[in-house]
């Protein structure tokens, strides 16, 4: 087979997302390189995996060979590549994100297989001119420079810190790495409200809608905190670090200030502060062997929603078997920001053999599995009885908690709204703030989350709607580019094993 013929077959197999055909073209020791990858890929199986990952993240792929010259076992090709990127929600003007470029390839054949395929192109036009610049009034996590090194392009502000969110030119690549491999997330912006003292457990129980009275050291529990009117303030994970120390690992809310305000001038025997703890998450099925390699005590021994103290190269950490992925994964809390960079570097080094990829928390996968994040500023005026986690609210226990009376009244009157999933009938843009929704009875609601689901190959969302809205019903949603229909469905959208 001539090099140019092999290349043409490769293009067809790629555009068709035909993994078997891709693999058939390469040998065991073949090498593939393209500037879109940091390192060349070696071996037919690895080449297949990488190329499929790239192909699935795009659609309407077209390759046109402009000219080709074969010289025995070596060939050169000049070609054009055109494709649409899947999963970004498109540009502000409604046009899709595209991967269009002209490129060259050098193909070397050996014994009828592609021995090496090297693609040459300029990737500069495919990315923003430079990374988003930070403003000086927000804090940086200890890992910020590492995220810049990893090529982060976009951040959001979270707990007054910069939260790295977009690294990849193809959203599917991060999704795939989480679903099948292992990912490392800078979540140093996930702050801890530390409650310490003889009343720590009772105080956390008082803040929380969920019964915490039976928690023991080493337990973790997802919970919801409300204000006195029953409005959702935060949905932290509580980590019971010691007998008198609990961390509320929280989202984008001033939870430490809230707790300090309640304690001030009260009889609670606790101190409240934000310790110098900046976590990372290691999420994905290969997180288990990686963490066992890195930590002194193997975290694989932890059950879900448990935590323990251990160390990494002598640096003390807390590790919890928790995370924002609904899959295998852990959070590592270094007990000083001085340890953050050495621990990051160690995870990177040891993660190489597992194909560790630095990414952000994956919104696509989280929403597919019904994992969300809710805080005071973005609660849509919801109380927890209207939220996906309504079953966790303990209104009938003995313990008092902030908002209990209000929530009991709401329950007595009847909860007026509920949270549901939506399957959209066309692609939706990136959600920058909530979208209005109207049901068939004229009732209103809000779409709070909207992403592309790679498992379902369509746009999905989570909304708060009138309680009368039923499964299967179609609602109309208005977003900045127009109106779409959404069919009401259950959450989670897919099972744990369903992957795109």
């Amino acid at each position: 087979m001539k090099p140019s013929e092999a290349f043409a077959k490769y293009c067809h197999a790629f555009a068709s997302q035909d993994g078997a055909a891709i693999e058939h073209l390469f040998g065991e020791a073949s090498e593939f390189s393209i500037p879109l990858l940091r390192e060349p890929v070696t071996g037919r199986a690895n080449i297949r995996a990488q190329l499929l990952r790239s192909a699935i993240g795009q659609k309407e792929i077209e390759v046109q060979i402009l000219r080709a010259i074969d010289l025995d076992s070596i060939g050169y090709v000049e070609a054009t590549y055109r494709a649409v990127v899947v999963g970004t929600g498109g540009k502000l003007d409604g046009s899709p994100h595209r991967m269009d470029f002209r490129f060259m390839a050098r193909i070397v054949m050996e014994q009828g297989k592609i021995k090496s395929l090297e693609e040459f192109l300029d990737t500069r036009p495919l990315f923003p001119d430079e990374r988003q610049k930070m403003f000086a009034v927000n804090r940086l996590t200890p890992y910020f420079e590492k995220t810049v090194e990893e090529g982060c392009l976009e951040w959001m502000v979270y707990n007054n810190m910069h939260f790295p969110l977009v690294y990849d030119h193809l959203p599917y690549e991060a999704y795939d790495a989480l679903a099948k491999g292992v990912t490392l997330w800078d979540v140093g912006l996930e702050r801890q409200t530390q409650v310490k003292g003889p009343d720590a457990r009772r105080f956390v129980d008082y803040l929380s809608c969920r019964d915490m009275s039976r928690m023991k050291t080493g337990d973790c529990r997802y919970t919801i905190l409300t204000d006195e009117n029953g409005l959702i303030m935060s949905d932290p994970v509580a980590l019971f670090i010691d007998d008198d120390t609990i961390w509320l690992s929280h989202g984008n809310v001033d939870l430490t200030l809230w707790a300090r305000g309640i304690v001030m001038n009260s009889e609670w025997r606790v101190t409240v502060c934000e310790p110098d703890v900046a976590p990372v998450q290691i999420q994905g099925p290969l997180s288990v062997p990686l963490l066992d390699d890195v930590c002194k005590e193997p975290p694989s021994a932890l059950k879900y929603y448990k935590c323990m103290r251990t160390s990494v190269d002598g640096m003390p950490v807390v590790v919890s078997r928790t995370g924002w992925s609904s899959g295998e994964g852990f959070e590592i809390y270094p007990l000083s920001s001085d340890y953050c960079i050495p621990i990051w570097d160690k995870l990177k080094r040891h993660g190489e053999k597992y194909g560790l990829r630095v990414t952000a928390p994956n919104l696509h996968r989280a929403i597919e599995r019904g994992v969300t994040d809710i805080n005071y500023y973005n609660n849509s005026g919801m109380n927890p009885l209207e939220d996906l986690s309504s079953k966790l609210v303990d209104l009938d226990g003995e313990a008092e908690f902030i908002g209990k009376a209000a929530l009991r009244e709401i329950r007595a009157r009847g909860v007026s709204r509920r949270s549901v999933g939506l399957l959209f009938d066309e692609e939706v843009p990136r959600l920058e703030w909530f979208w209005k929704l109207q049901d068939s009875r004229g009732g209103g609601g809000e779409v709070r989350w909207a992403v592309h689901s790679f498992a379902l190959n369509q746009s999905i969302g989570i909304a708060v709607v009138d309680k009368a809205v039923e499964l299967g019903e179609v609602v109309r949603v208005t977003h900045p580019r127009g109106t779409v229909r959404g069919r009401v469905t259950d959450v989670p959208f897919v099972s744990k094993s369903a992957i795109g």
Partner: protein
Amino acid sequence: MERPLPQGLIPTARLLEYLNAFADRDPGRIAKCFLPLACVELPLMRPGRLVGIEEIVTAHNLAFESLEKVSLKTHTVADSEAVAMLSGELRVICRGREEIHAFAIASQGTPQGLSRASWYFDSRRHRYWSDKPVL
């Protein structure tokens, strides 16, 4: 250039003349390689596509103000009557720092000169060789 390159058909000879002149940082010799309305595409020179001898020479001049040293290693040239293609490694010292670019180049031409030379390499993590665009 780091090794002698084979002479071939017209496009190959012209392409190699251009690459030799580039390695020697000689805009005058570069100009002789191209037809009057030739096009050169070179990622690290703004605006990326240079049309006509004047733009081509001006852009190369600007680039060579920053490129203190240039060396090229190339693989086998593949050519036909009107097209020559090769790949290789371009090393430059730019503003005191070494850059290494794995590149490929496609060229087309006539006996009078090249009508096109398109370089393909990734410029993304590098500063342009000149901050001045050629327009």
